[in-house]
């Protein structure tokens, strides 16, 4: 009897938690299908018109393309730099190795606001204006440590032995990297890319601070929100959410799935 009450209470608590976290998202998605100009109850029935408007609005599609450019290039650069740094740190002995590892990880602890401001000041003092490439640099700064950390966990002693075997058979460092290490940890590299892309995809502060005309999707949404709510913003939000979910599921499958060897 007592146990049943306990179970009931904890079940209720769990449900409440999930409702608290997921209800706003569910409502946002629901009203992206609102047939009317106001994204508030009552729900007047489903329509895809708002999705049509975001994919036909130049502002939206420009933002989307800019976000893709920033996301793909910053994630690719982050993964390449992070992987090479992890390989160097884990495979070579040199003084201050631990210190260097700490310095590489450090940007994870720095607030995005500081990164954005610092970047803006630096870029302006060098005589360049804010642009999409400044956002790419900013996103590499915040994402490279993450890619580095993911790669480092995958470059253990077992993998090191395998690299030794390749060297023993005559392979050069470049060949070991290209034909052994990278293919061996390919799932982790793809997962790191997906994770970096997800973070870049909905990053706002840095993107807002260091762009002027070529803005990314989160900045477009922010300016739309200033003009008032409409089901169109809900549709954009839902679309971004969907992209992030797809990426995260990909990470989950690649990185945490049970490895066969």
């Amino acid at each position, binding site marked *: 009897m007592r146990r049943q009450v306990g179970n009931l209470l904890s079940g209720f608590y769990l449900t409440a938690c999930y409702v608290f976290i997921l209800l706003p998202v569910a409502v946002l998605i629901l009203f992206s299908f609102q047939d009317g100009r106001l994204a508030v109850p009552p729900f007047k029935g489903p329509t895809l018109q708002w999705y049509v408007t975001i994919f036909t609005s130049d502002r939206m599609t420009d933002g989307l393309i800019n976000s893709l450019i920033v996301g793909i290039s910053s994630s690719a650069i982050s993964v390449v730099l992070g992987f090479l740094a992890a390989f160097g740190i884990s495979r070579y002995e040199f003084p201050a190795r631990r210190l260097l590892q700490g310095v590489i990880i450090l940007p994870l602890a720095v607030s995005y606001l500081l990164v954005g401001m610092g970047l803006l000041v630096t870029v302006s003092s060098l005589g360049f204006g804010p642009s999409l490439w400044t956002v790419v640099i900013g996103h590499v700064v915040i994402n490279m440590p993450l890619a580095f950390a993911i790669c480092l966990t995958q470059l253990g002693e077992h993998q090191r*032995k*395998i690299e*030794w075997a390749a060297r023993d*058979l005559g392979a050069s460092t470049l060949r070991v990297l290209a034909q*052994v290490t990278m293919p*061996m940890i390919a799932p982790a590299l793809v997962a790191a890319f997906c994770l970096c892309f997800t973070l870049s995809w909905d990053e706002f502060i840095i993107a807002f601070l260091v762009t002027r005309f070529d803005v990314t999707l989160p900045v477009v949404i922010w300016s739309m929100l200033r003009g008032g709510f409409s089901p169109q913003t809900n549709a954009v939000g839902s679309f971004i959410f969907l992209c992030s979910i797809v990426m995260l599921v990909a990470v989950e499958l690649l990185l945490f799935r049970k490895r066969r*060897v």
Partner: protein
Amino acid sequence: MTAHLEVESIFKVYGAVTALDQVSLAVEQGAYVVLVGPSGSGKTTLLSVIGGFTVPTSGRVAIAGRDVTALAPAQRPTTTLFQDYALFPHMSVAGNVGFGLKVRRVPGDEREKRITAALDLVGLAGYGGRGIHELSGGQRQRVALARALVVEPEILLLDEPLGALDLNLRRQMQDELLALQRRTGRSFVHVTHDQEEAMALASLVVVMNKGRIEDAGAPKRIYERPATLFTATFMGESTQISGRVSGTNAVETAIGLVHATMTQPVGAEVALIVRPENIRTDGAEIELGTARIREATFQGAHYRVLAKAERGDQDFVLRLPPDHLVEQGAMLRLSCRAESLVVLAR
């Protein structure tokens, strides 16, 4: 004529620890060398120095008359069979075996031929297309062997290759390794902590302890006439009788005066070593006194008997034939032949 593998006064020091202490070794072509010793004896470090993975503090390594001390593993005519095989998980069996050939720019059709021949050699014909994760432990071992042998190294280095296999498979792989070594005619250097494995495989056993070579020789010699007390105890069971040389060819011990030929001077502390199968009960020339059976365990081909001397505090370990009537507490009159008694400095 220089040896095929020459290791000359190698030192390897890690901080305050001396892993290898003036190790020298000369090996003829086509030898099966087994480095054996307890953990921390330096056997793996020595293998690693030969393979080029560990740079020695001082000393010299030469293979086939060429000084390779300064060369990286890739440039040495050696390949290694790693303990956990270290196969490339993302390549097929053929991809693994062909890797070394690809690095050496062997053209495609010849590569195919050599991969097939190598897989044939290790009994994995037709497995080329399989993935590594589809193979059992023993099969992975064979792939690793094929991968190491296909590039035709002067010397194959084996780092405790049988440690992860169960007993039956280990025996089988021992036979196969030996057959493979004979067929290819290459020198093998094999590391193990298992003295039985060392006996079964080696043409040259190298017993290591605390970074030094204690003894090196043919298995039969190592077992029958060990050079040091450590070798005698590490390489199989024996009875040890401690004593002091009291006159020409005579040792004063707890069980009385024992006569044996020896080179040690009068007054030296010595140990007399007899292997269990050499202790007899039929009155051979060297008397070892009477002993009472303390424990006897039946082992199939023989009884393993622990006995205690009537006089003095001395234990014996010996073997009795299975048809012998063995009773606890029974008295035995022990002796041995002169040539089976080994006198070693203590």
